[in-house]
């Protein structure tokens, strides 16, 4: 009797690999369900964002479409088409980086599946199919989300192609551009896995993942700045040769009409890059297929590790124990490092977005007295860095690692040492949330205010210390030892609260810091007030730590607490 596709071994294994891509490895059953709800929320946010973008562009194109001169419209159309390609390309690359640890079968697959009567080709084939379906799902969602925008911008009497052709071109070339993103990530990972010594493969690929995440986050302002390239495209600027979305604008023009020598050159670069990424991906995959053991089995032989540099040696063994454990985990766990660097890079991208403003760049070139709007732009950046770094650190240390190994912390918990252990968390939060952003911003603020930048930096530090205290209210966890429940709030709730805090913080913190530099007396009062509030929060936190036990099990807020009334 003929069996359907769903009952075939290939379908079972593909489904297994596909489901495993949603399994982050540290979530309980409830946590995994919450994670899927969170993903659905994110997809809904992507669709909403696509509609919002369309709404924003309606005004711009109403004027352009009605104009007698087609040139402004054509120029804007070309630049906005690069945005329409750029957004799904970014999402495709981001998703592929997130699952880049699963691009080839792992040690568990090797040990479980290889003894079964299935071929290596079968295992690799089903793994690839699962990856293709996973990436395809997000690519499809992002192309659908941007389709209304493409429909809007391409429906004009001045358009080089009819709207149905433009939409078909967008879908075909958009898929090619996303394929380029996916293949580029696979090529980078594959090449490193093949080239790097076996003992270093896991470490190097984990670091690469973090670097790619950071690079993608930092690229966000440049993706949204793509529409500003209209003049460059019209002037046939060579700078567009390094922008992948522009390559696929060229491909679309070449395939569906409207190409000239310049867009043909862009298309040639794009097609060559796509081919190169495909060749490197396929080649590295073939090498890994032949040398299956290379990525499957970890090597015991590694070079001597350098001891960690200590900036301020602690004499408290309990605090040092937690600090060393935390640093080792952040250095070696791809997941935790990725979350910390990726989320922090979001803040860096937003800050960069403010700093690449033409006014700021102009001021940076001459470094004289700054105009008010430059001061506003620069002084908003520290909060963006501090906000994201604080949130990133808290999220990273809240995610568990080897949760069943936490028995050692449960066994050694005591009231006498708890506060010392948790102080390691405070120190880490302060180092990343206060120290790093201030170090990054100090040169700019010095350039802006001269010696009075000290007051601005002190105000920044006070805001960041308060933010650390807000984030640590109710915190009773040794980093990485407590179970994690994602999606305690809906994606929409988190987005609204996050944006609210971000916008409010940028205005308030920027105003306080700038005001402190201009009027030191005001600065002293503001810093004292912020410090007093932070101190009150810190006292409440320490008071909680002295009596409340450590937390090892996270719960959804829907789980209610009984009052234990007799």
């Amino acid at each position: 009797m003929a069996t359907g596709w769903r009952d075939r071994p290939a379908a079972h294994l593909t489904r297994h690999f596909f489901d495993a891509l949603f399994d982050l490895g540290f979530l309980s059953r409830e946590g995994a369900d919450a994670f899927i709800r969170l993903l659905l929320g994110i997809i809904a946010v992507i669709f909403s964002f696509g509609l919002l973008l369309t709404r924003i562009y309606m005004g711009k194109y109403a004027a352009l479409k009605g104009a007698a001169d087609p040139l402004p419209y054509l120029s804007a159309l070309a630049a906005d088409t690069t945005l329409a390609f750029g957004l799904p390309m970014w999402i495709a690359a981001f998703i592929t980086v997130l699952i880049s640890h699963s691009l080839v079968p792992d040690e568990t697959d090797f040990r479980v599946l290889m003894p079964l009567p299935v071929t290596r080709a079968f295992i690799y084939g089903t793994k690839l199919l699962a990856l293709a379906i996973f990436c395809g799902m997000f690519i499809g969602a992002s192309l659908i989300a941007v389709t209304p925008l493409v429909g809007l911008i391409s429906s004009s009497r001045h358009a080089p192609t009819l709207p149905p052709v433009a939409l078909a071109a967008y879908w075909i070339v958009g898929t090619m551009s996303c394929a380029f993103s996916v293949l580029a990530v696979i090529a980078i990972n594959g090449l490193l896995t093949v080239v790097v010594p076996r003992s270093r493969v896991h470490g190097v690929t984990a670091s690469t993942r973090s670097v790619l995440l950071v690079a993608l986050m930092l690229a966000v302002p440049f993706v949204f700045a793509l529409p500003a390239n209209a003049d460059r495209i019209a002037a046939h600027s060579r700078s567009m040769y390094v922008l992948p979305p522009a390559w696929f604008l060229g491909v679309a023009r070449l395939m569906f009409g409207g190409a000239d020598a310049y867009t043909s050159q862009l298309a040639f670069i794009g097609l060559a890059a796509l081919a190169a990424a495909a060749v490197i991906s396929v080649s590295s995959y073939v090498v890994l297929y032949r040398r299956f053991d290379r990525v499957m089995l970890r090597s015991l032989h590694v070079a001597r590790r350098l001891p960690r540099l200590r900036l301020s040696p602690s004499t408290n063994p309990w605090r040092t124990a937690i600090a060393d454990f935390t640093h080792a985990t952040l250095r070696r766990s791809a997941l935790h490092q990725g979350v910390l660097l990726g989320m922090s890079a979001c803040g860096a991208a937003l800050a960069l977005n403010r700093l690449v403003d033409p006014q700021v760049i102009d001021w940076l070139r001459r470094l004289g007295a700054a105009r008010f709007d430059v001061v506003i732009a620069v002084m908003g950046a520290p909060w963006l860095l501090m906000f994201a770094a604080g949130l990133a650190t808290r999220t990273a240390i809240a995610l568990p690692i080897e949760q069943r190994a936490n028995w050692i912390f449960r066994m050694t918990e005591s009231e006498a040492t708890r506060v010392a252990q948790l102080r390691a968390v405070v120190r880490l939060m302060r180092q990343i949330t206060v120290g790093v952003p201030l170090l990054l911003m100090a040169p700019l603020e010095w350039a802006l205010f001269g010696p009075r930048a000290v007051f601005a930096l002190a105000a920044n530090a006070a805001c960041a210390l308060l933010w650390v205290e807000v984030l640590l209210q109710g915190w009773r966890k040794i980093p990485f030892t407590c179970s994690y429940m994602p999606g305690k709030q809906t994606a929409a709730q988190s987005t609204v609260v996050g944006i609210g805090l971000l916008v409010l913080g940028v205005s308030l913190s920027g105003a306080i810091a700038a005001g402190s530099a201009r009027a030191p007396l005001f600065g002293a009062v503001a810093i004292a007030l912020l410090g007093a509030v932070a101190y009150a929060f810190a006292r409440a936190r320490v008071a909680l730590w002295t009596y409340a036990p450590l937390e090892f099990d996270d719960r959804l807020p829907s789980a209610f607490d009984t009052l234990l009334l007799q």
Partner: protein
Amino acid sequence: MLEIRGLTKRYGALLAIDRINFCLSRGEVLGYLGPNGSGKSTTVNMVVGLLQPSSGAILLDGKSQSDDPVAYKQRVGYVPEEPYLYTHLTAPEYLTLVGRLRGIASAPLEKRSSELLRLFQLHDSRYSTMAAFSKGMRQRVLLAAALLHNPDLLVLDEPFSGLDVNASLLFRSLITMLAAEGRMILFSSHRFDMVEKVCSRAIILSKGRVVAQHDVSPARRGDAESLEDLFVRVTDQPDFTPVARDILSVITH
């Protein structure tokens, strides 16, 4: 001496451990046996302080665990059933973490962990994270961590699982010597042969209750019922021959 008095653990309506009593004297290795689900791990978790008993008492040298749990746990070393440890750390890093959490000063901690790693033949792998370690290697790390603070009571939950022959022989000698030095050792296992070789006495648990205590000292072995026979008798183990026959039937038809 470790005294367990009327120890009970309930999970809602489920009675996991029902008023068990036993003692473990200094210098004694006590075998703790029972089929899966008998409450062995629950008892071990309560003895090491990971679980709170519903009622009953655990006393170490007359002092109740509940009176000063921290002081109690300072005197306990524990090797869990599965090698649950932080595999992204190297073995020296893990030992340093455990030693610091136990409040051992830096200099003796460094010296002791380095010596233990050498003696447990883990020194050559000291720069590798434990993700690359075999189960036996991880088990050796856990034993080294359990001994680091020189505990009075050592709780070993299936310590021979995954060990090679050499490491097993080393562990056996070590357990005997630790007991000879006056330490109390609670040895939970499924392996009768190991319990007979290592322990002086064994307790058998079934459905949350102590159903037998057995002297397994070499002097008693000649005339006494074997531990395995006693286990089968007191835990109501069914005759597994029909089950084995059924399995054979399932795979051949």
